[in-house]
């Protein structure tokens, strides 16, 4: 199995559409086309082996299922995972004659995904940085009152960023990578330091994502309590996410009623400030 220029180009377009800031909008782009599960379907169709594409996508999706990018903090880049990683994984699996849905194939896919996923964050930062150029043009348009130019700035010019940081890298890596893939397995054995480290990093990185999320939610130590209670419910009691959410609702209800009670009270005693409850106090415990 090799990847032709044409196939590589189609992959490049999908990479441009699905990246974080991608050209298809986050709903259709990053959150749909960017998910490895969907990427597997797309790559399977493009490379003509649907089953293997899906299988590789499923394996990678499991690794990145909780990927959140709060405030544009990207710990792994899905354009690279889905449209460079999956195709290369498919080539490798194929050339080694592994069964599409075998465990070995899945592991190979994961290693390819983690490898390009972390490396791919460079592409994300490249794209976002280049967009500064178009934004600069945008500000000048605003100053001059040429508002219609905003459409070009928001919808058009960023394609140039993607040509450079999504399309070209994808095309080159998928087209030429196929030959390099063969070497990868020998050069980077799974029980060697580099691969082990790579996978360990892959396991550790989601911590950053969750931590960034926590930064938005947590102000003082008390705010950690709901987090840890939820963690305990899932980790110790094996509650699934829907059940955790259901249980959390009763605490939300209590919190709401409590705050309303405190509120009313504060209105009732506007002059009495010494010793009253206020948020600052709540968070300082």
């Amino acid at each position, binding site marked *: 199995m090799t990847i032709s220029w044409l196939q590589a180009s189609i992959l490049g377009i999908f990479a441009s559409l699905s990246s974080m*800031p*991608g050209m298809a*909008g986050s*709903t*259709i782009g990053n*959150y*749909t086309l960017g*998910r490895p*599960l*969907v990427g*597997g379907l797309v790559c399977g169709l493009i490379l003509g082996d649907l*089953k*293997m*594409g*899906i299988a590789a*996508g*499923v394996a990678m999706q*499991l690794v990145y299922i*909780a990927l959140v*990018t*709060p405030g544009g903090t990207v710990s792994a880049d899905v354009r690279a995972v889905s449209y460079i990683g999956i195709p290369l994984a498919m080539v490798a699996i194929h050339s080694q004659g592994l069964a599409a*849905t075998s465990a070995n194939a899945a*592991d190979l896919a*994961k290693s390819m995904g983690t490898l390009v996923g972390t490396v791919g964050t460079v592409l994300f930062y490249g794209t*976002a940085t280049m*967009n500064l150029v*178009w934004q600069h043009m945008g500000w000048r348009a605003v100053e001059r*009152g040429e508002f219609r130019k*905003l459409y070009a*700035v*928001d919808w058009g010019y960023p394609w140039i960023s993607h040509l450079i940081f999504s399309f070209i890298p994808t095309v080159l890596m998928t087209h030429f990578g196929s030959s390099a893939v063969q070497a990868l397995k020998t050069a980077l054995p799974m029980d060697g*330091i580099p691969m082990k*480290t790579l*996978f*360990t990093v892959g396991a*550790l990185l989601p911590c*950053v994502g*969750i*931590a960034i999320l926590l930064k*938005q*939610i*947590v102000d003082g130590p008390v705010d*950690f309590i*709901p*987090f*840890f*209670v*939820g*963690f*305990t*419910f899932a*980790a110790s009691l094996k509650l699934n*996410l*829907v059940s955790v959410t259901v249980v959390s*609702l009763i*605490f*939300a209800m209590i*919190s709401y009623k409590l*705050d*309303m009670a405190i509120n009313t009270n504060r209105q009732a005693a506007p002059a009495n400030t010494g010793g009253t409850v206020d948020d600052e106090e709540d968070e300082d415990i």
Partner: protein
Amino acid sequence: MENTGKKISRKTLNKSFHHWFYGHLTAFSQEHMQTFGYLTSMLPIVEELYDNKEDQEKAMKTYTAFFNTEPQLGSIIVGITASLEEARANDGHVDDATINGLRAGLMGPIAGIGDSLVVGTLIPVILGIALGMSDGGSPLGAIFYIIVWNLLGYFGMRFAYFKGYELGDKAVGILVGAQGKAIRKAIATVGGMVVGGVAATWVTVKTSFTLRNGSGKAYLVLQDKLDSVYPGLLTAAFIVLCWWLMAKKNISPIKVMLILVVVALIGVLTGFFNPGLKY
């Protein structure tokens, strides 16, 4: 600005919504994340409400301020400003500072809620179900995900946008008033617990550290000991560490990631970490 009972047409609102639906992140930079998406979304409205170029410029200036939020749930903010802009066009009581105060006040909490509940929970749940349908390389799961998520995403955003427009000022009352604060805190409770659940469910940090006796039998499996203290202890510890580095030590996410790479390398070299995979 004359009080002429101006009303944004349905068509224009639709246009504004679709501009947002498509373009909220396309021109993203680290400096002005969603500002341009916001500008293109407000443009049709401003053009309809003000004939006068000057008024248009004044109105547009409002939206040049930095903006970033979770885009799906954030549609409600765009809807609210649409209705505030309409009010401003009519009697001018609403001013620049009000609109931007509002935007700034809302984008934070809505990013927190949206990132936790939409991107951090809803999507993983649908993906989880879809993965279950993908056994043996079946395309069913992927198709299921595409359909379900996009329907939810599109109509959910639409609903949020128009709800925001309808409620307008009132939405502000609900979102930031006395009751609003209580509701936000309640939602934050859900967010906190769910993120805890997400962390425990999807993030797994495990040590492979093991002590063996002469005959090779393991007499101490560190991971088991740690789990007997508190299941998922290591995962929780790493998350809190990352939080602490970023929130208390002001280290940037990128640097934290680099630190983790170093930690991973040392861990692998000392046998503390070992993914134990094979080709």
